[in-house]
């Protein structure tokens, strides 16, 4: 009787040990069969954002790792009648808002005037059109940014110009005006004793004006570089061309407007 008890206890202990040792396999073999091919569905809906995207939202979108960048049009444009004028009209449409933002800032106004003055005289541009897509607060967002770059070459040197603007809101997010000669005019030089303090004051005025223009707080990490020879601002700390977008091996494409509508054309070797 006692031997039977011992045998029974050993059997129970061994059974418990084996059961516990193989418990995960026993459990997962049944759970895996249950989970695999057992689908779960849910419904969703989009709440389209009807308002224009704000500068804060754009910054958020540009900074997001998940944002999907699509380069829709990149090309070099030479003087070509109507299309050239269309592009000039496009970048010119941003001028009123920009000028009104820098109402009292003489350096900014002189840089803007210089920018558009040279733009009308230049016969070639590099144009890049990009859409940045994603979600903000659950709403689908797509922003089309137009980046136009041109240079003013001559025997005296080269001037660099760039404008990055939202095609829809006409707000400029990156602006560069580095002409061959100083931005400021002679009469400005006569009126002001040119020194670093004046430059510093003009820079501070630029920063205040930009914060109002973009509708952002002062502590935001934007980039402003102003001097009597160059005028540059960017809503992001880095230049637009430095963003992740450039790391993508994207297919550049565009569309040409023809008499019968738009036609898709690969633009990889456009320029």
């Amino acid at each position, binding site marked *: 009787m*006692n031997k039977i*008890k*011992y045998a029974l*206890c050993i059997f*129970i*202990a061994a059974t*418990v*040990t084996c059961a*516990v*040792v*193989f*418990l*995960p*396999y026993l*459990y*997962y073999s049944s759970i*895996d069969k249950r*989970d*695999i*091919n*057992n*689908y*779960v*569905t*849910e*419904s*969703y*809906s*989009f709440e*389209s954002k009807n308002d224009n995207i704000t500068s804060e939202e754009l910054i958020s979108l540009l900074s997001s790792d*998940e*944002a*999907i*960048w*699509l380069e829709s049009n990149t090309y070099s444009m030479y003087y070509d009648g109507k299309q050239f004028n269309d592009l000039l009209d496009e970048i010119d449409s941003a001028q009123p808002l920009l000028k009104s933002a820098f109402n009292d800032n003489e350096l900014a106004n002189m840089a803007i005037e210089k920018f558009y003055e040279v733009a009308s005289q230049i016969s070639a541009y590099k144009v890049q059109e990009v*859409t940045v*897509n*994603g*979600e903000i607060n*659950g*709403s*689908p*967002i*797509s922003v*089309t940014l137009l980046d136009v770059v041109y240079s003013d070459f001559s025997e005296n040197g080269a001037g660099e110009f760039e404008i990055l603007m939202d095609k829809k809101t006409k707000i400029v997010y990156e602006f560069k005006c580095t002409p061959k000669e100083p931005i400021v005019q002679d009469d400005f030089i006569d009126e002001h004793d040119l020194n670093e303090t004046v430059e510093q004051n003009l820079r501070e005025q630029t920063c205040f004006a930009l914060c109002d223009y973009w509708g952002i707080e002062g502590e935001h990490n934007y980039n402003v570089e102003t001097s009597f020879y160059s005028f540059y601002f960017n809503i992001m700390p880095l230049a637009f061309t430095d963003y992740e977008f450039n790391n*993508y*091996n*994207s*297919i550049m*494409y565009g*569309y040409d407007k023809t008499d019968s*509508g*738009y036609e*898709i054309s690969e633009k990889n070797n456009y320029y």
Partner: protein
Amino acid sequence: MKFAWKIFFISFVIIILSFGVGGFLLINSVFTTSLNNKIQSVCDSNAYITSSLYAVVQNTSQIDNNEAYLRFTISNFSEQVNHNTSNTTVNIDSVDGNNFYDKDSFIANLQNNNRGHVIIDNGNKKYIQAVSKIILSIGDNLPYEELYYVESIADITDIYQSRDSYCRTYQIILIGVALFASILLVIFSHFITKPLVRLSEVSKEIAEGNFSKRAQTHKGAIKTKEIAELSYNFNTMAQYVEDYVEQLERAAQSRDDFVADFTHELKTPLTSVIGYADMLRSYQLDDAQRRECADFIYKEGKRLESLSLNLLNLIVLKNDEINLVSVKSDTIISETGNSVLFLLKKYNIQLTTDFEHATISAEPSLLKTLLYNLIDNACKASEKGQTIRLTGRIKDGKYLFSVIDNGTGIPQSELKKITEPFYMVDKSRARSMGGAGLGLALCNEIAKLHGSMLNIDSVYNKGTTVSFTTELCGSEEVLDCE
């Protein structure tokens, strides 16, 4: 089954169950969390891509009824997205495209604007597939609509491999724990039950008759408080049993001695009676001789009668209860003094009394018998001309009677046995005086009936003091007595 093995099996099962189930729950928690996080991540990514695709198409909706442009935009979007997501493959295709990982699964049943996910097992690998079904339209005036699926596929084989790896580790650890716990539990269970085994061995020895055997209770031998208490209580019980057995043995011995003494005391007069009766029957004796024989027979008969009466009294006194009444001490002492006048005259002894007046609770006739016997013994022990004192004192709330003589005394070694029936210090002397060794036994029984014991204080060849106490009556009882 041994107690140690019971402890081993129960503890082993509890340890294995606790450790095993706890470990499994931990693994399952880690696995479930990882899997759910991955599923959520893929679903969130799919939702984001779907939302972005919707935004892209909305942004280009100015191109009316351009199916080709819609598809091209989506194709470009798809490639761009796949560059963006390294671990997840994204397929975007129309419903008719059939370019999905598992078109036969839930995709076919997916409703418009619904999203679903499923785990797919292709034998070697496992994937999480999240699919959204979306209607995309291009053009404001002449919109072109098409139904699309956005599918995100992520490899989750590593999560399952990690789980299986954890399970293998868990098994190895659990088997290790089982072996380690077995060894430790065997040692500990035997260590814990060792004092009980020792106690069991001691109890076995006691059961076999070695009543002096005791369990160890000192510190160091037993560290568990409960076991120490058990050992201590066991030893107390063993001591009680030993004492009781000794008492029984003494009682048995006493009974044997009693029977032997009684037989001897019975045989002695009977031998005389038989001898003288045979002489009367067998020989022609003259009148004087016949009278002498009859006289012997009569005396021995009286002695037998006295023996049987005393025995009867002893048995009756042992088994009966007496009715105590209040009586004055001077009455008892004076009546006792009167009753022993014959003895005093016979042994030529003087009796002096010295007592305090009090009312005591006693059975008068038995108390007088007790005092009579004590004085009788004192007379027998005293030389002619000596004086015996009978005193009565109130002491410690009781009344103390003492009979004091200056006779032969009793050796110290005999004092303990002096109250046993048929015990005589000097047998020949006692018998010559008609004693049978029952007097003090009777006295002791009477003293017991009065709630006391005979206290014998004796110095050999100097004298003996025998005393006992009775209860005093209270003042109210004294009135009753009067």
